[in-house]
């Protein structure tokens, strides 16, 4: 109840409802309207792996709504003494009302959710899922295009280890998009996910050629080739820097096409793209705040008023 481990935990109606709520919460996220609905509530930010945006936007979301945050990192705690995830989570169960967890191992969020009574929000489990990122991605897409249905979305880069694209692709096909998966052969989307995407009945195209997908795209979702996930450095060197987007690539794209990136970027989006009307990745990073506000309220069973003023 209240957990968000994979996108399967949300129906399409729930997704739409949460996106509507997040939209209403934008002024609260910006700090122009006060709405302390989470006063007296405590979020545990359980980060067993590095994070910038996810951890900070969870913290901002909680604080802007009057809540408190416990920040945990695996460095300098009992984890370095060999404490199990199970034991760490038992403790948090007593300290907080809700927890966001990021962990290097796949399945850690599901295991945590099974182990404790408080709601668990998966903030990234290894190369598995990242559903709160997906919710802010959907929010940003809908904000730009006023819909999600029938768009052509191109996911580019590390589709094998990239957890954001795993959750996002599964959610997008539920809304009937046409999906293009661009990656080198060694970084293709895992086969079980491709099976699910194809079973959705949506049009799925897997290709290595990025540039020929630009003109027909409504959304280009770039990802970083993640050095830290490669078992061997030579394999990384073969594909590092394989896809790059610069402003000169954008001359023939659709007027309303948007470029997204979960960030951090390395060199896959050139800084020249930042100033074009197509770049939305910094807006996307901000959108993590209202989206995570709505998700925290859902987990804690708190109703967001129809009118926020």
């Amino acid at each position, binding site marked *: 109840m209240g957990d968000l481990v994979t996108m399967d935990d949300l129906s399409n109606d729930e997704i739409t409802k949460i996106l509507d709520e997040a939209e209403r919460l934008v002024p609260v996220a910006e700090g122009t309207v006060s709405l302390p609905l989470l006063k007296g509530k405590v979020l545990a930010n359980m980060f067993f792996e590095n994070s910038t945006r996810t951890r900070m936007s969870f913290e901002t979301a909680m604080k802007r709504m009057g809540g408190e945050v416990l920040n945990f990192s695996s460095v300098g705690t009992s984890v370095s003494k060999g404490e199990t995830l199970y034991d760490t989570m038992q403790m948090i169960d007593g300290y907080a009302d809700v927890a966001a967890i990021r962990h290097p191992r796949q399945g850690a969020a599901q295991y945590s959710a099974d182990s404790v009574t408080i709601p668990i929000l998966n903030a990234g489990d290894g190369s598995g899922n990242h559903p709160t990122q997906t919710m802010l991605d959907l929010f940003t897409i809908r904000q730009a295009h006023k819909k999600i249905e029938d768009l052509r979305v191109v996911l580019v880069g590390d589709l094998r280890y990239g957890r954001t694209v795993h959750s996002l692709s599964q959610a997008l096909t539920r809304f009937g998009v046409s999906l293009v998966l661009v990656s080198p052969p060694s970084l293709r989307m895992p086969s*079980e996910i491709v099976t699910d995407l194809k079973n959705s009945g949506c049009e799925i195209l897997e290709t290595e050629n990025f540039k020929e997908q630009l003109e027909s795209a409504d959304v280009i979702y770039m990802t970083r080739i993640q050095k830290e996930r490669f078992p061997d450095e030579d394999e990384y060197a073969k594909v590092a820097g394989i896809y790059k987007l610069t402003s000169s690539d954008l001359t023939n794209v659709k007027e309303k096409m948007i470029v997204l990136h979960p960030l951090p970027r390395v060199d896959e989006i050139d800084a020249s793209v930042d100033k074009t009307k197509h770049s939305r990745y910094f807006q996307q990073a901000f959108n993590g705040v209202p989206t995570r506000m709505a998700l925290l309220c859902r987990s804690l069973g708190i109703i967001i008023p129809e009118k926020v003023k």
Partner: protein
Amino acid sequence: MMSEMRRVTAIRNGTVIDHIPAGHALQVIRMLRIDMKRSTPVSLVMNVPSDKISRKDVLKIEDRELNQEELDRLALIAPAASIAIIRNHVVSGKLKVELSGELYNIASCSFSNCITKGAREPLPQRMKVVNDEPLEIRCYYCGKRQNIEELINNII
């Protein structure tokens, strides 16, 4: 059928597992955690013609009656197996192997970065049966599709 069953002597008490896919009887022995050093007598017939599946293995385990949890284990390699419980030379019960939606504590995940590979984590091994035909099994935790042969090797 009787003639195939009689390739080895009928047992007085115990369990007969019929219709094991040919060549898999030894894996069944392993799955049932039968310790060959301490076990009661076990008769093994391999690669005999069958009406149901072209070739089959048959196992007869004396003085041991299989329970449901043990049957669940068999679903991975012998989903079509039929089981007869023998008491005093008479079939006292017939059982079927059925693949349920979940394999609980039967085999461990083969994905190296799964949370189930974490040292000392007190968690059960859980697998979801996503599809019966063709058989598709995924880890409940990490979601990775399992290679069935590897999964059989990972039986707990």
